[in-house]
């Protein structure tokens, strides 16, 4: 709206300007005209005044001095056609007025008459505040050589602005000029009308924000201008359209990129491993949340801070610093073990350069993968300690055997008692080694899952009796009594006979080994509705409360002297428990120090197991 008002005002200003300039032109022309007229009049007065003064100077003084209506001056004055003659005065040579004729309202100015004869004839301008400016012509009146007086003729100086009566001519001159103004104005308005329409259309388009061609018909220069303007509009619309489509393409591709990026990010976040991505300068550009768990580092800090400040694990820090220092190289995998409150924790770190699809010449960064390797480290450490135990357990009987056999070779030792002792020791230690090796093999196979359980329906009474016979035969020199208690028959059980035999045998061997001289080993088979129980009882040294919870641990041997006096490897009970658990049963122990122990194998009956499955 403001714009329109401004345009309207501008439009009016144009008209006003035209009027003002026309008036100025008229004024200027009139001024020139008046000036010319004034000059013209002045020239006329000059000529007339000079000649008239000279003429009057030729008239005899007396004639001029004659007063009355017929005086020469009166005749002159009244016969004068012009009204600009202000006065005619005859003065004496002393300057006294002798005869004068004066226009009404005019006062004859007093003036100094010239003294030098050369100045007697002439003219002068007199400024008279009362009568206006006067041009006075004067001439001497001579009588022979004598100066009789002067004749002075005063004319009113013609004014620049004429009297009102003379304005009609000026008006008739100004009117047509003035009338030309609206004519020009309307002609101009007619010419610029399409321009104004175009301007208004452009204003509307500016307000509505749309760019359209102007549908305005005009001829001449304006038509040409509008035509050019329209082709410019068309060109601009084309450009805008092109830019809009380019922009929409850009927006679409940026959205696609954003989607792809968030997809990749969520994939990287979902990985179980810690991920750090470095750009080709080595700065971290991505870090996933798993770093919290693996390196105890906040991913935000990883992205914004120096490695030294967020990475508290020295070797991990130096690994990452290396990757940052040498981007484009691959490192690792490097296993870093972290001891945290005696619990083993380990991570594997590896770094690979990132290459584009096309070529492998330049990398655009590095990805560092941090994997939790605690399980592997624990397995490795477990394997190492298992092997260490086995080595120790094998070397211990070997040591005794080696020493005894060496002693046997030595002639000095060959008394009968020693030979018997040596043979017994070597035999015992051999048995111990065989037991250890068998138990180790079985336990390893059970743990690795390679030893499948071959379950068959068997008469458990036969198995128990066999086991009892076996131990009785093997331990006939041990000064231990055996007692077997069992019902004639039991409910059906489905077991792996060979494996369960190993378990029972291990329990019986221990019962003999840790018994007191003259003690008893009892093997008892009992039955409830759900399970079969195999009890192995001894009257031996017993197990302390502290040891009771550990007796089934692999390689655990009590520190008790009574236990240490007897050979053992700490695998028998562990294996027995594994075997019983494979049968879905359980192996429990109860004991009293110095009085004996009881191990109980509980195996669920088949019907009970079926019930459990159903």
């Amino acid at each position, binding site marked *: 709206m403001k714009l329109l008002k401004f345009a309207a005002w501008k439009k009016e200003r144009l008209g006003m300007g035209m009027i003002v300039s026309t008036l100025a032109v008229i004024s200027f022309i009139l001024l020139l005209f008046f000036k010319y007229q004034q000059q013209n009049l002045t020239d006329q007065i000059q000529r007339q005044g000079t000649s008239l003064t000279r003429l009057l100077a030729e008239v005899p003084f007396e004639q001029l001095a004659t007063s009355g209506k017929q005086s020469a001056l009166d005749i002159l004055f009244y016969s004068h056609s012009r009204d600009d003659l202000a006065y005619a005065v005859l003065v004496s040579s002393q300057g006294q007025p002798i005869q004068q004729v004066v226009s009404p309202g005019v006062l004859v100015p007093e003036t100094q008459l010239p003294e030098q004869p050369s100045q007697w004839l002439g003219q002068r301008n007199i400024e008279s505040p009362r009568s206006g400016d006067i041009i006075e012509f004067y001439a001497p009146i001579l009588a022979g050589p004598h100066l009789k007086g002067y004749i002075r003729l005063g004319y009113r100086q013609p004014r620049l602005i004429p009297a009102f009566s003379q304005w009609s001519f000026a008006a008739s001159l100004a009117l047509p000029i003035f009338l030309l103004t609206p004519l020009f104005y309307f002609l101009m308005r007619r010419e610029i009308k399409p321009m104004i329409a175009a301007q208004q259309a452009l204003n509307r388009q500016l307000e509505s924000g749309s760019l359209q061609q102007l549908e305005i018909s005009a001829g001449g220069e304006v038509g040409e201008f509008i035509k050019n303007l329209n082709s410019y509009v068309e060109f601009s619309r084309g450009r805008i359209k092109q830019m809009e489509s380019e922009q929409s393409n850009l927006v679409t591709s940026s959205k696609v990129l954003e989607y792809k990026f968030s997809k990749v990010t969520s994939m990287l976040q979902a990985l179980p491993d810690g991920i750090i991505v470095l750009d080709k300068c080595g700065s971290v550009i991505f870090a996933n949340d798993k770093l919290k768990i693996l390196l105890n580092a906040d991913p935000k800090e990883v992205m914004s801070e120096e490695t030294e400040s967020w990475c508290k694990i020295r070797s991990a820090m130096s690994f990452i610093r290396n990757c940052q220092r040498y981007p484009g190289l691959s490192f690792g995998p490097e296993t870093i073990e972290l001891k945290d409150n005696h619990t083993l924790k380990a991570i594997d770190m590896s770094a690979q350069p990132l290459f584009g699809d096309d070529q492998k010449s330049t990398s655009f960064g590095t990805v560092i993968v941090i994997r939790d390797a605690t399980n592997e480290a624990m397995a490795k450490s477990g394997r190492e300690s298992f092997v260490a135990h086995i080595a*120790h357990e*094998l070397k*211990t009987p070997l040591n005794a055997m*080696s*020493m005894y056999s060496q002693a046997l070779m030595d002639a000095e030792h060959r008394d009968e008692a020693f030979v018997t002792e040596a043979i017994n020791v070597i035999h015992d230690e051999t048995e111990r080694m065989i037991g250890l090796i068998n138990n180790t093999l079985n336990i390893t196979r059970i743990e690795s899952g390679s030893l499948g359980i071959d379950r068959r329906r068997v008469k458990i009474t036969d198995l128990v009796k066999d086991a009892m016979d076996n131990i009785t035969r093997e331990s006939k020199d041990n000064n231990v009594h055996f007692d077997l208690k069992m019902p004639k028959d039991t409910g059906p059980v489905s077991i792996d006979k060979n494996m369960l035999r190993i378990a029972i045998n291990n329990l019986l061997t221990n019962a003999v080994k840790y018994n007191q001289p003259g003690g008893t080993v009892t093997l008892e088979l009992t039955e409830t509705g759900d399970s079969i129980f195999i009890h192995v009882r001894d009257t031996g040294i017993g197990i302390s409360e502290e040891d009771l919870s550990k007796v089934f641990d692999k390689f655990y041997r009590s*520190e008790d002297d009574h236990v240490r006096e007897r*050979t053992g490897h700490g695998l028998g009970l562990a294996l027995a428990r594994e075997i019983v658990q494979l049968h879905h049963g359980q192996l429990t122990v109860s004991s009293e120090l110095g009085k004996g122990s009881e191990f109980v194998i509980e195996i669920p009956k088949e019907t009970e197991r079926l019930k459990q499955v159903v």
Partner: protein
Amino acid sequence: MMAKKILLIDDEPHVLRIMKMSLLREGYQVITAKNGLEGLATVHEQQPDAIVVDIEMPKMNGRQMCEQLHVDLPDHQIPIFIATSRAEDEFRSWTHAYPMIKFMEKPISLRTLIAALKSTLSEPLGNARMQAGGNQIE
């Protein structure tokens, strides 16, 4: 000359017995202990001339015993032979601070043990020699 006193420390009764038997025949005076704790007490009581100790023992193992002995008697000059089933460097590194300790890998040959004891104990500079070539495996 008084017989040298050897302290044997092992939790294996057979091993302890055969070693004792062999060393007695060699003319040594032999005392035994079943574990590190007992062995340490015996060292204080009887001041043996040499110690043969197993590494894996209940109550106090061979390493703990040696370390405790060096705490109790920092300047002791008793040669110690450690019988171990693991003689790799990583299992021996702790003895670098103790030049009196020598390793013997199981199974131990009685003859080697006796020879080592003899050479260490018979020579007046035996201790010094052991220091120079300390921690070697026999």
